[in-house]
């Protein structure tokens, strides 16, 4: 049986370094207030040594991929220095961006705002690269009137879509995986939105990854057991604690969830 996945999220911003820009690892709270926490390649190697299942790399500068040399170089380095699956996103706007990232060593490409502007991009990408390469990232948050809606622009723009209906449309168009992030829970360490995850899982037949809110190891268990997620992704959780992925994996396994424990 396919194992449940533990997926560290590497949030990336570009910082000037001499005459060029480099990628640095940050965490956010509610998608705002970047805190620099390290070097993404070093961190990825540590994660690999601790047996994480894959990496999610998201650049949050909203730069076009074609203008983001630092991100492409980061993906190339990750694909050269680690041997695990990479999902890369942040600024993907068209098929050319898919090609650039896949050729740089990404295994899957995550698209978010571009799918909101042009849903047909998802269909086109699935036809060319196969559904297994096409990940649609959906950010959600609760609006003042109580509705839970899909948002963009780091959570500031209400796109109006119901997350479950939007996820189903994306899968109908060819998305092979959905990453669901609750912006209100990002960096809050108070637990995942398992109810929403479950609703999306029940509405689609592709794997669903839940993220936003992991603060203790049991939140991962809840994502799998209550949210029925195939994977749980977390950034902040791994950045400010002694918790390492292997301890977390043991906790998940002890709860009876199938997850890899040994090399």
């Amino acid at each position, binding site marked *: *049986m*396919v*194992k*449940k*996945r533990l997926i560290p999220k590497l949030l990336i911003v570009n910082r000037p370094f001499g005459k060029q820009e480099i990628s640095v690892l940050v965490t956010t709270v509610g998608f705002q207030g970047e805190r620099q926490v390290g070097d993404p390649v070093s961190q990825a190697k540590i994660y*690999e040594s601790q*047996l994480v*299942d*894959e990496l999610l790399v998201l650049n949050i500068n909203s730069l076009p991929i074609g203008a983001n040399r630092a991100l492409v170089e980061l993906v*190339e380095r990750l*694909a*050269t*220095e680690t*041997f*695990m*699956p990479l999902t890369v996103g942040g600024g993907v706007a068209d098929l050319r961006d898919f090609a650039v990232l*896949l*050729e*740089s*060593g990404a*295994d*899957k490409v995550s698209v978010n705002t571009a799918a909101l502007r042009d849903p047909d991009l998802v269909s086109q990408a699935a*036809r*060319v*690269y*196969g*559904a*297994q*390469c096409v990940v649609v990232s959906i950010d959600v948050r609760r609006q003042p009137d109580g509705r839970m809606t899909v948002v963009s622009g780091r959570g500031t723009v209400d796109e109006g879509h119901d997350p479950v209906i939007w996820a189903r449309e994306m899968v109908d168009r060819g998305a*092979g*995986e959905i990453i669901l992030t609750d912006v209100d829970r990002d960096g809050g360490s108070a637990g995942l939105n398992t109810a929403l995850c479950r609703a999306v899982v*029940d509405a689609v*037949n*592709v*794997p669903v990854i839940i993220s936003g809110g992991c603060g203790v190891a049991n939140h991962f268990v809840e994502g799998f057991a209550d949210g029925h997620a*195939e*994977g749980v992704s977390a950034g902040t959780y791994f950045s400010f604690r002694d918790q390492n992925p292997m301890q977390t994996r043991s906790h998940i396994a002890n709860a009876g969830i199938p997850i*890899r424990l040994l*090399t």
Partner: protein
Amino acid sequence: MSHQPSVGLIHYQAGNIKSLRSAFDWFNVAVRIVESADDFDGLTHVVLPGVGAFGHCADQLRASPAMDRLQDWVRVEKRPLLGVCVGMQLLAAESEEFGHHAGLGWLGGRVTRLRTNDPAIRVPHVGWNTVTVAQPFCGYDVGQTDDYYFDHSFAYEDLSAAHVLGTCTHGRSFPAIVGAGNILAAQCHPEKSQKTGLLLIERFLQMGAA
């Protein structure tokens, strides 16, 4: 290793060459991108990658200037070939992905969609899953189990048991590692399967060593 491997990666605009190249570089062997017949000179091992739709990959490979030489390498000279993901599926007789497409037919069998009515079984099949060795190959023993990373929606069906080296289950049991003599091919991604995958690549590099 008793010989110095020289590895060629077939580049036909349908593969994630970068990651496979990194995996072979890790073993400190010579690696070359192969785009034409001449690029085969001096090679000891050839790798056929593949990402994307079967039909697109098959068309690209058939149109490649390296295709005729690749066929001789595998079918006439019987030298080592590693197929990965769609590069593995292309060895089948046919695929039903987005219509009907003929494969190379070097192993036979058909490539069909992983279908399931079980809501717990999601397609694409993404993540780490267990491969159980079905017959001895490259130092692996029958019954041995290892976890590899998978990312696919289609898999082999009706493949001769003689060619099935390892199986995996996702809704149905499917051949995860296949082979015949000089051919080794994997549905999973050894280049993305951490130490487990690197070991498979090392074993491939030992194929054909006298």
